């Protein structure tokens, strides 16, 4: 065949469309490779480092090991596994033993190897835990939440044994060792490359020095992260996927098209409407887990502005169109938080006793002196859900004479705004990693006034109950104080709970072994394909 200009052009034009042959040649690698599409990827490889973004949790989960991990338990509706707070299993720890006085715990380490080939020793565990409590920022805050506060608490007994001394008895200490912060670094490698910095922050931000089930083969921030399996992993069953490609695709429509066409294996972070459509169409599996300890709520400022008056806060709780909001903003991908029993259960979140009753709400507003104007603030990053929600709130409040102006601000401004604690109404979603009612209230309603206590709620009676529940070892006392403080917030409503959202993931039918983690990042170690 002679190549003329015409055939050359024809061949050139048809080239991009000739995909069949090439796809077949790539078949073997595709079956062991997982393609994940997500909105944005990690901005660091070190979850303990300051300013790490949400997806960095996934790096910590898959590339590093912790002493303990959450035991998989089946999701009630099927589709994979979730976790239960109290149930733990060893990851780097082969076994662990609480001291008779309950004030320390001794961990025996497994025979595990770092990616560098060095054996994991108790010294590495100590260095890593020391780092987590000393580095500052989120890592240290999270460690403190489990009463892990000082390096002196971590004691190397011998090469394979580590003891953690407790400052106080705290039921969250052990579960907090299974979250994505207290993971174990290869301390020698880190120190060697750390230069002047004792915690090797710059080195570990760009390099993995761990023993986890996956290594990072390539990382292009904002584009993609490629993971390969660590064949020498001994801290669990060897994962079946050899290679994971996580691509950052900003547009949700593109992510949906990719999963529907079958090019992507797993898609994270689609708008609720897309998850609903995909679930209805039935071509791909959609697994939804109600986010433990997570709830969309409308925070009403208890210190400044009109909602200082508790009657107005109750009026808002009575007028919310709960069912409509769940359908129009979350497209049913959540649990309604209205119409609960008068006596609460020992659980969080749970429905409050309020349901839509305009007459009751109107009466409360009239008793408090009639209508007024106010503003409702939300984070533009949450607009997909928060925007329809806020419009419905505006509509509903108008019927009882409260005129609402909606204010939508970008992420960086939102943080600044809620820190000021002067906004009368804020719509926000908060989800705690450790699934305990007292933990949620500690962040959102306690007198310590953390940034997430958006309502600036201050009540010594509540603080007492929350603190009691947090540190008691007695189940009866715990249950009693939880019921008491939930009763209290039912009446006081610093936050009107709207719905507990589900964490949704769409995946091809060929993907199995889905595991939900509290950090809400994909756990590649359990996934299977084909």
């Amino acid at each position, binding site marked *: 065949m002679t190549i003329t200009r015409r055939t050359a052009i024809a061949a050139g034009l048809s080239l991009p469309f000739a995909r069949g042959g090439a796809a077949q040649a790539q078949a073997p690698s595709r079956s062991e490779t997982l393609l994940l599409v997500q909105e944005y990827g990690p901005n660091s490889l070190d979850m303990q480092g300051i300013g790490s973004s949400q997806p960095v949790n996934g790096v910590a989960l898959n590339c590093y090991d912790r002493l303990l991990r959450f035991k998989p338990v089946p999701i009630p509706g099927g589709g994979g596994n979730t976790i239960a707070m109290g149930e733990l299993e060893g990851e780097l720890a082969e076994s662990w033993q609480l001291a008779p006085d309950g004030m320390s715990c001794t961990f025996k380490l497994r025979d595990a190897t770092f990616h560098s080939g060095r054996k994991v020793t108790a010294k590495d565990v100590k260095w890593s835990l020391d780092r987590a409590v000393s580095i500052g920022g*989120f890592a240290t805050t999270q460690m403190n939440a489990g009463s892990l506060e000082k390096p002196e608490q971590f004691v190397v007994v011998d090469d394979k044994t580590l003891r953690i001394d407790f400052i106080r008895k705290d039921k969250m200490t052990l579960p907090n060792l299974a979250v994505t912060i207290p993971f174990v670094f290869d301390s020698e490698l880190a120190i060697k490359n750390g230069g002047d910095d004792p915690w090797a922050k710059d080195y570990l931000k760009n390099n993995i020095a761990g023993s986890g089930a996956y290594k990072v083969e390539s990382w292009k921030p904002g584009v993609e992260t490629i993971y390969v399996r660590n064949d020498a992993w001994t801290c669990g069953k060897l994962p079946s996927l050899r290679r994971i490609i996580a691509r*950052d695709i900003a*547009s949700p429509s*593109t992510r949906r098209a990719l999963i529907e066409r079958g090019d992507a294996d797993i898609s994270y972070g689609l708008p609720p409407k897309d998850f609903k459509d995909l679930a209805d169409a039935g071509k791909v599996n959609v697994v939804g887990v109600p986010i433990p300890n997570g709830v969309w709520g409308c925070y009403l400022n208890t210190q400044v502005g009109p909602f200082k008056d508790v009657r107005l806060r109750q009026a808002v709780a009575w007028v919310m169109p709960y069912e409509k909001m769940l359908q129009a903003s979350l497209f049913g991908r959540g649990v309604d938080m209205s119409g609960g029993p008068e006596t609460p259960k020992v659980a969080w979140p749970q429905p409050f006793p309020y349901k839509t009753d305009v007459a009751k709400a109107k009466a409360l507003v009239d008793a408090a002196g009639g209508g007024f104007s106010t503003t409702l603030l939300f984070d533009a990053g949450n607009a997909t859900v928060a925007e329809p929600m806020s419009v419905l709130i505006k509509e509903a409040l108008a019927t009882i004479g409260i005129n609402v102006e909606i204010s939508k601000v970008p992420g960086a401004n939102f943080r600044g705004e809620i820190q000021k604690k002067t906004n009368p109404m804020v719509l926000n979603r908060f989800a705690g990693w450790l699934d305990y009612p007292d933990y949620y209230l500690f962040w959102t309603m306690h007198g310590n006034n953390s940034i997430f206590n958006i309502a600036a709620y201050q009540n010594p009676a509540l603080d007492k109950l929350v603190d009691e529940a947090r540190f008691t070892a007695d189940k009866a006392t715990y249950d009693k104080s939880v019921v008491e403080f939930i009763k209290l917030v039912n009446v006081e409503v610093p936050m009107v709970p709207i719905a507990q959202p589900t964490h949704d993931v769409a995946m091809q039918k060929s993907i199995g072994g889905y595991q939900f983690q509290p950090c809400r990042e994909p756990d590649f170690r359990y996934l299977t394909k084909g």
Partner: protein
Amino acid sequence: MLKMIGQRLMTTIPSIIGVIIVTFLLTRVLPGDTAAYFAGPAASPQAIAEIRGKLGLDQPLPVQFVSYVTALLKGDLGQSLTTGQPVTRDIAARLPASAELTLAGLILAMAVALPLGVLAAVKQGSWIDHLCRIVATAGVSLPVFFTGLLLVYVFYFLLGWSPAPLGRLDVFASEPPGVTGFLLIDMLLARDLEGFRAAFSQLILPAVTLAIFSLAPITRMTRASMLAVLGADFVRTARASGLTNGKVIGTYAFRNAMLPVVTTLGMVFSFLLGANVLVEKVFAWPGIGSYAVEALIASDYAPIQGFVLTMAVMYVALNLMIDVLYGVIDPRVRLEG
């Protein structure tokens, strides 16, 4: 010529300095709180203060400015918090991606718009003139994210002709050694034809999207400028001298009509380079526009400053290039220069 370029560069120095000062001040008056944003969820006030100290944001503005300029003189644009990488590295990786896409789109647009504009001017009032009008109106009135999504829907989702919109390369294709940062060129340099095909097929849809948008200004400008030239004395003289129609239009009229078109091209290029954020988002293109917008949402100062500065420098370079090009097209401009 060299003297002209030198003089030109001298006059741009004050504007670059102006850009540096203005972007620095603008980013500081943004209402967002970078430290609170990056402290992450559950941050305590101490944690936020620590981050503010680490970023140097607790210093007075003049001190911040001096340290910014000092770093800038060393070629250091600072550290991006959104990607966690030095801004210079980010921009070096992302600018070629945007430039490749924009150039491809522009070349495509020129291939359609120039002949269409010329024909519309020559056959004024004919069907081709109307077609030109329709194309221009449609192209400019369809928002790019809409055309982009429509193309993805038809050519990828329904027909399956186009590869998955996963960015510059299919996930299973391997990247060539980066020489120019332009994937098509790098693939050819690496003699990787399979890779070239992969990169080329990824480029088609986003380039077409951009081309549709940029058709309008180029077509309209070509038509208008051709009409003006065709009415000029020298064209009448040429026709009177018995030159063929092709010779008159192709050689004399077209070349003279090119000056305003080249100006428009320059403007369209620099505009598209930074403004095709939506195309980048739809096609997951790792370009500079979406980089800047993401940084803006997070009040991440360093990338914003780096982006604006890069754009300013590129704009200066582009204008200079166009001026030089004027001289090539029209010797009279060269003499005046």
